[in-house]
């Protein structure tokens, strides 16, 4: 089974702190994604990566950056955390290509910025 893990289930940070959210997948997937989940808004794509050191902005990239130095690991970085970044963050991965196979999701990190 594909496994996507995220470094923390819950995280509390202070405004202005630099925050790293880590995601690791064990199925050699090319594509990895970071989503933000908010009530009433569903999941929104922040960034995705289709290869090592490659990244693309999603729908809401402002205030975030990402890093993918190794194929299995995709990090989301909040350079200076703000209270409006309090949210649930979900990582996902999928093999590149075509077909109906689906993204595999991590368990999510609930981030609170005080």
């Amino acid at each position, binding site marked *: 089974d594909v496994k996507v893990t995220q470094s923390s289930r819950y995280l509390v940070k202070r405004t202005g702190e630099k925050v790293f959210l880590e995601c690791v997948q064990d199925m050699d997937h090319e*594509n990895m*994604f970071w*989503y933000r989940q908010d009530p*009433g*808004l*569903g*999941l*929104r*794509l922040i960034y*995705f990566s*289709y290869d090592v050191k490659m990244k*693309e902005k*999603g729908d809401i990239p402002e205030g975030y950056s990402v890093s993918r130095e190794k194929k299995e690991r995709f990090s989301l970085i909040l350079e200076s955390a703000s209270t409006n970044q309090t949210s*649930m963050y*979900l990582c*996902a991965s*999928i093999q*590149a*290509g*075509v077909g*109906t196979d*689906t*993204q595999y*999701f991590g*368990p*999510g990190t609930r981030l609170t910025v005080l």
Partner: protein
Amino acid sequence: AQTVTQSQPEMSVQEAETVTLSCTYDTSESDYYLFWYKQPPSRQMILVIRQEAYKQQNATENRFSVNFQKAAKSFSLKISDSQLGDAAMYFCAYRSAAGSARQLTFGSGTQLTVLP
């Protein structure tokens, strides 16, 4: 850009009854995939069912089935014989068949409560 709309923020159903969750989407593409995901309180996203747009036959997975109306851009989920374990947030999602990035566009979700 594609959009996905779920107009029912909350739904409830009696155990053993049937419930239908609505989803509409907007796209100019002809080839795409549609998904329903379930997110229980554990927060783990679980794929419930998927549909390829070029297939006219509605997908079915045990008690879960869809009503896919391509012309109307509608993709509803029917849950039959509802069980307590079906209680969760349900998300409808769209994915283009073009390109290899394979990102999903999600609706806002429907919170399903199952009443004993």
